[in-house]
């Protein structure tokens, strides 16, 4: 089924390639580096930046585990510990997981749907710069000793001005508001790209699962993120301008914060995990040498999780003493949401059982994912049940649970994705041996770190404590977890070494090293700036395994899919992917960077209460936007105005 170059068609002539290169190539200048709008370069930057933030958050975790290795340790002060655990959570959720997966989405979605770029390339560049600046904005607070210290959940009234003076929580609220602009822009871009830029013939029943997952995730962002933004805006107003939303003495209500936070927060768990599940559905079948079993059920599962995740938030509030019946409704949804996940697990298992398995490093990480994610799923069901939840919530059992879900459910797939798509992204193969060492260290380290936390939680250890007394039965489990954290850290370091090694010394990668089925494997490694010399025509769910798609990019390819007149790509219809028309794509520009700098100025100004600076930043942003979107002058004939 992996097709050779001849089967795939010889493609268009060199003249076409030259014209496409002339249109799409970006100048290799410094200015070009800042002005790029190429989704592949932007995707790579997302990946690298998110990986760096992962490193920071990981070191925070190592510091915390060192402090908790034994009872009554004094390596970190309580103030430092609380900032570190708050930043660890906030960064892992907001600055690592979602941007990392958006990075893969950025690189892969246009390739997988057979387009030449995202729907809004300049918005894409803008999203990256905002993410970078927001991440630096938040991390800069750590050396300044002003990092968020209210936990990633920042419950009021602890986080109000009276109980936490200083910039800590202003960094948190403003940083997340700033970052939210990037995430929302990215989400809109993914949805529109997937709706309008799919290759002709790619009706919804032929869309790769990864793209379904990215789109579902983006819709969740659209509906969940504004609620977090509102919550943070209200907290900022309370802290800075003495409004009374959370002030119980003046009619405010502290549970409002929790409701709004978790209306965002629970969907966010799936915002993180969903693209990762999409990665698994992309990687696993390829190493089983067959298409994924029960594609319609997988799609159902993606859609169902995206929707139901909005109706389970109160299970984070089962101990707040609300009426039990109101828990019942959310307990019901939290229970049912496991069904779609179960369908996916068994679809993957069936794919493995029916296929012929080839064990390579990406597949190892997928297996690691299944083992850990299943365990996280069990404890997830337990937390859906109110009585059990009330006993174990806010204990280390929760910490164990969500690390199994998030490390197992997101980091393992991300690692699989790194090894799987590295040849495509960089054009280099990684070292299989280094990869295997890394896998085993990570798998063992991960379980050694987080499994004991189930036990210490059941033994009554509450979470978010900077130290604990000895002799309560918690000591050995904490020591084990700390040892595991170091093993895990070593494994992750080895991944970094492996990536650098591949980039420096790796063998050149073929176009399709794995025999993949989706369209990114139908182009060169790394892809040319225009992605595809001929936009393919899709006839089935597995276009690369389908000779008709190869034929469509062969010598007989029609001009309406080659499009060499300027930067062009295709619009197709939303549901059925029917050919609509060719459209112009924008050139590279510095405006996204300038607009992002404007926003950075706004948020720095707000943070330090320099409101004139903020206003100036706002003016810069608005002015740049006005120029960015300024319509080109048209002659009356071009615009269609009757003379």
């Amino acid at each position, binding site marked *: 089924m992996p097709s050779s170059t001849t089967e795939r068609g010889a493609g268009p002539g060199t003249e076409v390639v030259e014209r496409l290169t002339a249109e799409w190539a970006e100048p290799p200048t410094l200015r070009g580096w800042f002005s790029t709008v190429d989704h592949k370069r932007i995707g790579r930057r997302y990946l690298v930046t998110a990986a760096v933030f992962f490193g920071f958050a990981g070191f925070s975790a190592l510091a915390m585990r060192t402090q908790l290795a034994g009872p009554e340790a004094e390596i970190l002060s309580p103030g430092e510990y609380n900032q570190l655990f708050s930043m660890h959570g906030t960064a892992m959720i907001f600055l690592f997981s979602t941007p990392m997966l958006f990075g893969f989405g950025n690189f892969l979605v246009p390739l997988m749907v057979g387009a030449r770029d995202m729907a809004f390339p300049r918005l894409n560049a803008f999203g990256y710069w905002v993410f970078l600046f927001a991440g630096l904005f938040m991390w800069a607070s750590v050396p300044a000793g002003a990092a968020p210290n209210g936990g990633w959940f920042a419950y009021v009234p602890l986080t109000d001005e009276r109980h936490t003076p200083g910039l800590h929580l202003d960094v948190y609220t403003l940083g997340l508001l700033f970052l939210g602009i990037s995430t929302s822009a990215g989400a809109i871009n993914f949805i529109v790209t997937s709706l309008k830029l799919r290759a002709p*013939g790619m*009706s*919804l*029943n*032929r869309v790769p699962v990864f793209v379904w997952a990215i789109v579902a995730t983006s819709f969740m962002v659209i509906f969940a993120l504004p609620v977090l933004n509102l919550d943070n805006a209200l907290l900022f107003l309370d802290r800075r301008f003495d409004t009374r939303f959370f002030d119980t003495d003046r009619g405010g209500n502290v549970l409002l914060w929790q409701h709004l936070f978790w209306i965002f927060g629970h969907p966010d768990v799936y915002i993180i995990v969903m693209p990762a599940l999409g990665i698994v559905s992309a990687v696993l079948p390829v190493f089983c040498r067959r298409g994924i079993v029960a594609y*319609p*059920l997988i*799609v*159902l599962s993606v*859609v*169902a999780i995206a*929707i*139901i995740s*909005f*109706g389970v938030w*109160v299970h984070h509030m089962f101990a707040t*003493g*609300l*009426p*039990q*019946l*109101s*828990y*019942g*409704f*959310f*307990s*019901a*949804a939290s*229970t*049912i949401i496991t*069904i*779609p996940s179960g369908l996916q697990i068994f679809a993957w298992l069936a794919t493995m059982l029916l296929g012929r398995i080839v064990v390579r490093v990406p597949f190892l990480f997928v297996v690691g994912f299944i083992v850990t994610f299943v365990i996280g799923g069990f404890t997830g069901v337990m937390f859906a049940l109110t009585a059990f939840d009330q006993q174990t919530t806010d204990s280390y059992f929760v910490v164990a649970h969500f690390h199994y879900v998030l490390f197992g459910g997101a980091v393992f797939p991300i690692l699989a994705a790194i090894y799987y798509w590295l040849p495509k992204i960089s054009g280099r193969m990684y070292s299989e041996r280094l990869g295997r060492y890394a896998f085993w260290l990570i798998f063992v380290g991960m379980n050694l770190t987080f499994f004991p936390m189930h036990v210490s939680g059941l033994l009554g250890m509450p979470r978010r404590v900077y130290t604990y007394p000895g002799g309560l039965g918690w000591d050995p489990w904490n020591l084990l977890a700390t040892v595991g954290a170091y093993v895990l850290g070593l494994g992750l370091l080895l991944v970094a070494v492996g990536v650098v090694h591949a980039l420096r010394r790796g063998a050149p990668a073929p176009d399709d090293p794995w025999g993949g089925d989706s369209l990114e494997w139908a182009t060169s490694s790394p892809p040319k700036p225009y992605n595809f010399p001929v936009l393919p025509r899709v*006839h*089935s769910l597995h276009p690369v395994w*389908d000779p*008709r798609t190869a034929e469509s990019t062969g010598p007989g390819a029609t001009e309406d899919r080659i499009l060499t007149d300027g930067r062009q790509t295709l619009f197709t219809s939303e*549901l*059925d*992917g029917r050919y609509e028309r060719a459209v112009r794509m924008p050139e590279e520009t510095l405006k996204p960077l300038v607009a992002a700098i404007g926003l950075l100025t706004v948020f720095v100004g707000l943070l330090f209460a320099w409101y004139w600076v903020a206003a100036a930043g706002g003016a810069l942003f608005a002015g740049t936007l006005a120029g960015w979107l300024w319509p080109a002058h048209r002659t009356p004939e071009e615009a269609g105005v009757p003379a």
Partner: protein
Amino acid sequence: MTERLSPRAATFGGLLLWFAVLGGVLSWTVHALAAWSIDELTCEAGHDELAGFPLTGAIALAVLLPAAGAVAALGVSVLAWRRTRADLPEGGEQSVGRAHLLAFVGLWLNTLALAMIVLGGVAALVLSPCQR
């Protein structure tokens, strides 16, 4: 397409499919928001009735009406799923294949939504509204 429909009928058919896909989960959304907010807000304010109307009755309505909506959507999705089942050669008529997939997704979504509404109803039978 071999047969032609009036634009009105075609649009209506397209929208009907979306009802088949999303009708159930929309009903469940209404159920979850209504039942939870009625219960929490009334009880936290220290009442056990809603403007003279017994709380249990209000919650029962917030279970039964959405359940009816989910059942309706389930019916439409079953119909749509069967109507679009025509055996299609791979790469054949992509619209019908796509509609079949969406109807299938809707079928399951409606079932899951109905299950959640019913489980919520079970909770309402077991627990009295303001019990903590």
